[in-house]
């Protein structure tokens, strides 16, 4: 099954079974410390490889950078 999702405002192709890690790889988000939300719900870091993204989802990826 094919569809579309939105990642940080960019529309991208979606396919059945796509995980958070797949989406991060697709976007080249290699930064070590990220916060990922799918349709407003936080995905814990240890679940990136297992958590799947539903079709039409709004994915938000926030880069966490040291300094304070």
């Amino acid at each position, binding site marked *: 099954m094919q569809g579309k999702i939105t990642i940080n405002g960019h529309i991208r192709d979606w396919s059945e079974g796509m995980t958070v890690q797949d989406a991060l790889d697709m976007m080249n988000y290699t930064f070590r410390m990220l*916060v990922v*939300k799918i349709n*407003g719900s936080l995905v814990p870091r240890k679940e990136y490889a297992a958590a799947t993204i539903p079709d039409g989802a709004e994915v938000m990826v926030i*880069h*966490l*950078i*040291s300094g*304070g």
Partner: protein
Amino acid sequence: MTRKDYFCERDPLAFPIWQKATVGIAGAGGLGSNIALLLARAGIGKLVIGDYDVVSISNLNRQAFTLKQVGQPKTEALQQNILAVNPYITLDVHQKRLDEDNIPALFHDVDIMIEAFDKAKEKAMLIECWQSCFPQIELICASGISGYGKSEEIKIVTSGNLHIVGDQTSCLSPGIAPISTRVMIVAAMQANLALERLICKAK
């Protein structure tokens, strides 16, 4: 001086809401020390502040401490500096390293929470901990504060009850501390957002 004298010329609608509010601040460094003073001046009724560290000379380029306070625990030094500005605030300070085990107990009664850690790993820890313990309470974080200039690149990104202030791009260079001006801009934006959200919540 009476309490009434001290709190003169305050906004009649906003100030009573801020006086009743409790704000949590995780970290009392560049962001946290400045955020605490800003909120104390604005008239927040109670602050809960946690930090394990002591004041060092390298902190003085951006943190709200003095030379005489070098070597003192940051929470203790910050408490002195806040009370020197506003003696009518309630402070609940904890000199300890904050983690997912003690954060829920220390900050359970806050109306809004502010992340003011230094390390990205600690920021992520707080976001995950907060989401699982208090998803109904708004959390204001910072990410990307290094360097100078580029004020216009500092923005607020919001998703549900999570707000991130910063440019989300500028990384620290090894051995070079963040600079006062950009740290203060982000601290002020975090504090300003907290004041705004408290008013929105009260409506």
